[in-house]
């Protein structure tokens, strides 16, 4: 199934896109989505372990199960202020 993924900060800069579509199997978790990102964009490998996912503008745990069409944001460690 296809999941829309928003990228920010260093991740955006590495991938060169603000939004991508990733293909994952039915019932995939956000942890598996992160791994998929690493396969598609090896440049992101080193950063995957620090990424938190947000679905529907809310942080979700790594075992959160995705649904077709979900808008997922990959959130690097925040550094506002």
């Amino acid at each position: 199934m296809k999941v829309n993924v928003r990228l920010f900060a260093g991740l955006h800069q590495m991938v060169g896109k603000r939004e991508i579509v990733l293909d994952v199997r039915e019932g995939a978790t956000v942890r598996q989505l992160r791994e998929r990102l690493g396969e598609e964009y090896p440049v992101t490998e080193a950063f995957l372990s620090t990424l938190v996912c947000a679905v529907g503008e809310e942080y979700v745990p790594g075992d959160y199960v995705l649904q077709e069409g979900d808008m997922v944001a990959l959130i690097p460690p925040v550094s506002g202020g």
Partner: protein
Amino acid sequence: MMFEITAEPLDPGPLVAAVRRDESGAVALFYGVARNENLGRKVLWLEYDAYPEMAIKKMREVADEVRAKFTVTGVGILHRTGRLEIGETSLLVAVSSGHRKEAFDACHFAVDRIKQIVPVWKKEVFEGGEEWIEGHVPGVEDGSP
């Protein structure tokens, strides 16, 4: 109340007016400012990125936390994005309260929480390089990213 993510320079006037009530005897206003040095590096400028919709939502959550924890009369938060020169203001947090101690404590708490959970990111461009600063991993309920 006022919560904004904007690429424009931040103006404290409307923010303070928005958080003040006639019961407010004190307003604590915090400015986060782009400074010229960090970790021993000479910083040339900063660049901020944000997830605007979620950042606004998380700012509101911070304000809710503040109101649950402190006796305040108003909370407002503005965060700037894009390129900031040294001396420009990246963050404004205003808290009004009947008395000064609550205003100070609540504003300090709000700034700490903003840095923990609001999806905003800072890139430092310094002499010889640049780096997206990895600050805080925002928590999720089961603690596992």
